[in-house]
């Protein structure tokens, strides 16, 4: 199952509270909206809660509902609608691998194999180090195949560079974000082919 759905086997914590530092950030978001419209801040606050503990528990959602003065069910609705909110704990690295058509044609199966070999888990599985998930189109088809790990995109993956990337992540070594073959944004592979000089 995707981390977007709660896991009935994971006990829900009894309570949740923002740490003082996070609370300061939350106040900034809340202050952006006019009085009586505080509930508009629900999405950034859910994100803050998720960053604080890694996932959104029922207690966290209730806490935010209380903070913003809205019915808890309205928070549940938002949190369950957007797949970037995680309703179950995930490993240290949240690896979301695109297997949609462009990535698949460009070898996402190999990337998947690399991930399985390094982390020892398959799609929908999780351990302390990582959670591996299959996602629909990540919207970076030009640089396929692509994986989103945490907040960052890692593009132009092959079996070899993906395996190295995952191993580096696992070992806590620095990694390059973005294209793994040095491509600049979404330019053609090997550099620009048009507009090379003055007309």
């Amino acid at each position: 199952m995707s981390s977007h759905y709660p896991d009935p086997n994971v006990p829900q914590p009894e309570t949740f509270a923002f740490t003082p530092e996070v609370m300061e950030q939350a106040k900034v978001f809340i202050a952006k909206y006019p009085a009586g419209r505080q509930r508009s801040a629900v999405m950034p606050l859910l994100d803050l809660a998720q960053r604080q503990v890694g996932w959104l528990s029922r207690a966290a959602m209730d806490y935010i509902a209380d903070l913003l003065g809205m019915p808890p069910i309205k928070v549940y609705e938002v949190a369950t609608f957007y797949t970037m909110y995680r309703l179950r704990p995930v490993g240290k690295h949240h690896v979301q691998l695109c297997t949609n058509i462009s990535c698949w044609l460009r070898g996402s199966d190999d990337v998947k194999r690399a991930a399985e070999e390094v982390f020892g888990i398959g799609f929908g599985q999780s351990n302390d180090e990582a959670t591996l998930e299959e996602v629909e189109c990540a919207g970076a088809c030009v640089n396929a195949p692509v994986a989103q790990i945490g907040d960052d995109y890692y593009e132009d993956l092959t079996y070899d560079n993906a395996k190295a990337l995952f191993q580096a992540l696992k070992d806590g070594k620095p990694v390059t974000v973005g294209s793994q073959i040095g491509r600049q944004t979404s330019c053609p592979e090997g550099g620009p082919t048009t507009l090379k000089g003055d007309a």
Partner: protein
Amino acid sequence: MPKLTIDGIEVEVPAGTTILQAAEQIGIEIPRFCYHERLSIAGNCRMCLVEVQPGPPKPAASCAMPVAEGMTVKTNSPMAVKARKGVMEFLLINHPLDCPICDQGGECDLQDQAVAFGYDRSRYTEQKRAVQDKYMGPLVATEMTRCIQCTRCVRFAQEVAGAPDLGGVNRGEHMEITTYVEKAIGSELSGNLVDLCPVGALTSKPYAFNARPWELKKTESIDVFDAVGSNIRVDARGNEVLRVLPRLNEDVNEEWLGDKSRHAIDGLRRQRLDTPYVRKDGKLVPASWQEAFAAIAAKVKTTSGAKMAAVAGDMADAESMVLLKDLLTALGSRSFDCRQDGAVFDLSNRLSWQFNSGIAGIDEADAILIVGSNPRWEAPVLNARLRKRYLTGKAKFAVIGEATDLTYKVDHLGTGPDALKAVADGSSPFAAVLKAAQKPMIILGMGALTRKDSAAILALASQVVDSCGLVKDGWNGFNVLHTAAARVGGLELGFVPGANGRDLDGILSGAEKGELDFVYLLGADEIDTKRLGKAFVVYQGSHGDAGAMRADVILPGAAYTEKSGTYLNTEGRMQRTARAVFPLGEAKEDWTIIRALSEVLGHTLPQNTLVQVRDRLAAVSPVFDEDTAVPAGKWGAFGVAGAIDAAAFESPVKNYYMTDPISRASRTMAECTEVYVNGNQKRKTGTHG
């Protein structure tokens, strides 16, 4: 006002009307699932698609599109028909074909509209989705696989009931309607969710697998569980009432109904008195009507009128009350009371006990002060109306009394009479709000009028009316919210102490001291029967409750579904119940019992038919006469100024789900009490009980 053409018919409607509403005005029905005239517009089922010109060349959702000048709408063009068929096919993709085992079968919007607007076969051969059922409390059964996500229930819970417990979680294929946390819906109006659901996803739990709609005999009647007098339809099969549904009445209940009124009906089959009883050697033994009457006659012979009294209960119909009063008057008694709770009114002025601005008047009020009442439990439908007014943002609300969650925000001025005094003398800031309001309103509950110092509180309220200008031309903002269906009728026909007669407290203390030796209880169960001392007690009623336990003779009467009875609601609006089923066993309609008894007692009442009894009622008060307009009462100060006890107001309704003999006998209400009052929210397993 924009003019538009719908299916070739030209119609002019106010700006802001939607196409669907405009079509309805000229009798063109557009199919719909999510649209409901009393809820906000969602526009998510797409069933109401029509062709609109000018506009983009695609069908438009008529429920969400406002009319515009010169619009041409086609509800039956090939484009509209094709669009609807497509929508219907999509709706049916994930809807199970379990109509034969679905309680909604026969009265299902989806079933009807699939026949009328859908294809006759499906092209879908894949797996259908299945959704786990949810727990929504003891009254609403769920079969969520049948849900078509119209979100009517979500909007009802949030907007009308004020209990935003329901929501739609996840999205797309995975969307589910749920409480998410497995809890009962925290509302006294949850039964209405079942009516709103256009499919069989939410059905009535107590009525599950009981009957098909075409087997039921439908009788239009009136609800007597509270003093609102909601209009209901009683559905019966054979001699059994199987369910109660609300009936539309814009002035009273709109189209809602409280859970007790809807679901306490299983109490009509339990604890019933179906034969007369006479107490012999300390034990009640079944008897014939002749024996029961003879026992009463023997006692009446040995006593005098001055030693006799009668108390009418909260569900007594006006017919039996007027005859009982006539009979006891003929026997020489003057001690009657229809106020089991000892409520205080100015008995000479009906304005002192009515909801004078009318229930519909709430829709116009702009400042509302609730005193000593918890309308959420005393009259949930009326509370929904208050909430509706609150949501418009045009009214300010304040409460004096218990601080409970009324589903809307109120200014809590205080708990006791001191706060009312502050409003009366202008020292409370809310006094200024009332003064500034165009249509200010005070709602006085039984929590304020059933105290020892109630006469003084009535005087205070009367003072508020005068000092804040609650009564003006075309508006009377003094309102009493009753809790008993029979109360206003009893007051109107004078079922109150006559000259030198005793009131309830006098009757009870008289019986206690032995000054009274004959007490007639007409369905009166809420009194302290221990205080009846050694008096000979006749109990006439439908249920074996407190009154029957103490009685020396029991005369089995009919419940409200078994007789045609007249009731005045808290506004003084006259309405009549209708007989849906026959009284149980030997039980008889109540007025006929009193008429028969009068003959045995030698004071034969002249009324032989129900029409004659109603003529008698009309003679007693014009309010009971349909043909006579009742002259508007004259406002005058009432109540007696006096010492005031500082104790807090307390609503007499401690448990909404059990207030009378019928609901106390109901198993469904016992379950509701367990969940909502005792807070035991645990979901029971399928094998439980």
